[in-house]
């Protein structure tokens, strides 16, 4: 694990103070992300980090790589264009639960289906923090948000199951409480050749916490500690015992043809066709 001083070298400190509230979990996720990138020793000139809109998406402004802060929900289409245009670029996405699962949900499942070599880190704080704490597709049933004054009646996506079903070949989940596990899961996702997604449960004491009796960051971390269960343990729990709990760790991993590899082969085929037809 890299020293904090080394992590700091890759922050654009001149852009601080950041916009995140006191007690926000996003800094922990960003630190884990930077540790993962540094641990892998990637060429920093060949790294592009793309985001959408929301609190978490502002992370790209604070890190010293090629960075792209796109429109709401559209990080994946932009990243797809970058990756296809230049497959040698390691293309990573930082996004939030509303950005990726609501307005960007269609792009998410199709990128997973293509198994294109992108890595998505989802900062899941169960609500839209930037706009005042409204509910998202990942908000837990019966919890309260600024648009759930009577309690949330929708069931949330299990975003890990969604992308796995759609064709993602690396899926993991962790929390900001599990700050030592997180960099490894992100690093493995980046190394993985194909579409990878790491869901990170993070705290928003300002809104989600305030509405749900966790108005300080420690309470939010304790909630994560008390509700996260390692995958192996989770698998032996009964349906009843699983209620309110979620699995953390590497959820799923597999190998499948990757999109840009397949397109490179397609180009060879097309060039062959062009030669034959001109003969």
């Amino acid at each position, binding site marked *: 694990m890299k020293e904090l001083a080394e992590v700091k070298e890759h922050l654009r400190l001149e852009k601080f103070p950041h916009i995140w509230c006191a007690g926000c979990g996003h800094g922990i996720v960003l630190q884990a992300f930077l540790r993962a990138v540094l641990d892998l020793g990637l060429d920093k000139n060949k790294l592009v980090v793309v985001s959408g*809109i929301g609190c978490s998406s502002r992370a790209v402004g604070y890190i010293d790589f090629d960075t792209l802060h796109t429109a709401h929900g559209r990080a994946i289409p932009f990243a797809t264009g970058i990756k296809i245009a230049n497959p040698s670029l390691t293309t990573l996405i930082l996004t939030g639960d509303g950005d990726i699962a609501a307005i960007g949900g269609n792009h998410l499942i199709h990128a997973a289906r293509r198994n294109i070599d992108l890595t998505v880190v989802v900062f899941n704080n169960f609500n839209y923090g930037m706009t005042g704490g409204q509910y998202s597709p990942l908000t837990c049933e019966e919890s309260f948000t600024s648009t759930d004054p009577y309690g949330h009646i929708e069931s949330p996506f299990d975003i890990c199951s969604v992308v796995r079903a759609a064709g993602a070949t690396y899926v993991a989940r962790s929390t900001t409480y599990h700050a030592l596990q997180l960099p490894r899961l992100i690093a493995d996702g980046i190394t993985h050749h194909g579409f990878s997604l790491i869901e990170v449960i993070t705290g928003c004491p300002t809104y989600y916490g305030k509405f749900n009796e966790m108005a300080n960051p420690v309470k939010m971390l304790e909630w994560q500690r008390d509700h996260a269960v390692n995958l192996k343990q989770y698998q032996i729990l009964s349906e009843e015992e699983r209620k309110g709990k979620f699995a953390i760790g590497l959820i799923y991993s597999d190998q499948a043809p990757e999109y840009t590899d397949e397109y490179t082969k397609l180009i060879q085929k097309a060039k062959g066709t062009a030669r034959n037809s001109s003969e």
Partner: protein
Amino acid sequence: MLSTATKDRIRFIQGNEACAEAAIAGGVRFFAGYPITPSSEIAEILSKRLPQEGGKFIQMEDEIASMGAILGASLAGLKVMTATSGPGFSLKQELIGFASLCEIPCVIVNVQRGGPSTGLPTSPAQGDVMQSRWGTHGDHPAIVLCPSSVKEMYELTVQAINFSESLRTPVILLSDEIVAHLYEKVEFPEAADLKLSDRPRPKGPPGEKYLPFAADSLSGVPRIANFGDGFHFNVTGLIHDLDGFPTTDPGKTENLIRRLHEKVNSRLKEICLFETENLEDATTVICSYGATVRSARHAVREAGQKGLKVGLIKLKTLWPFPDFIFEKLEKKVKTVIVCEMNMGQLMREVERASRGRFKVAGVNISRGTMITPQEILEKIERAG
């Protein structure tokens, strides 16, 4: 006798095919699209042609995604294009604004069909003139080119790519169902004769001082690096400073928005393409664009045979609007008749540019069929 090489360059092709071939010739190496008629042939042809040239084609999950993908690919260094029609053009609007603010070169082809909504797939219309100017939110410039023949579909596609690259801005090629599906004989230019523009690049290797949004004048075009070249720069849809990072400073905001406009407005003579016929002694002038020009020219010729003095202005650039053409019209011009397949979208621009010096009338038809020469001729005769 034509040489074999020249014969190979003469082809009987469709407007959409000319657009696709021009994209290849103009250097486009990435296309993302979503199926919609009457633009589909452009995507179909490029799915075959681009990989033959080492380029990339992808059919995305929707119109918004295809717009996002071309912007990402452009930032990675490729010349890019997407093509769509009516409803798809509506969906692309938000990211056209992103391209405008972030100065990302790209070409958006809109083959117009009857609207609003799903409208008339796939009958001709010219109802997206104002949307092509003001479709995305916020105060922004626009460059919109409009072909009236298969040959122009080729030429203006290349021109759109060149403007988008040299000015770092989205350019819209506003075609219509008739021109897109028309078959005509076209002589392609020799590859060596095509003038191609490339976006301005940073002068040196990555260093401390790269400012992706700093121009050398109030109307200047900043130099753009590729992602992956080691410059470590930031691009955001927020109002940004010269270094690409968000700012809310009123002075910096004002400078950015003014420069985006000046970048286009200071080059009006270069961007505004048009042709005129018989303007010298005309008392009535027909102004038209796109497929409607074909009927307009026919009507002008017939009016001439009847002894009427009628001239023609064919606009190939709709936006920025070329006020100067109308400011320079001779005093003897009494009436300008704007012919368009909509309820008068460009007519009101001509009215504004006239400043009361001549009367402005319109032939405005929105029924999913072409305006006939007879309908224009009747209007000419009424104008006297």
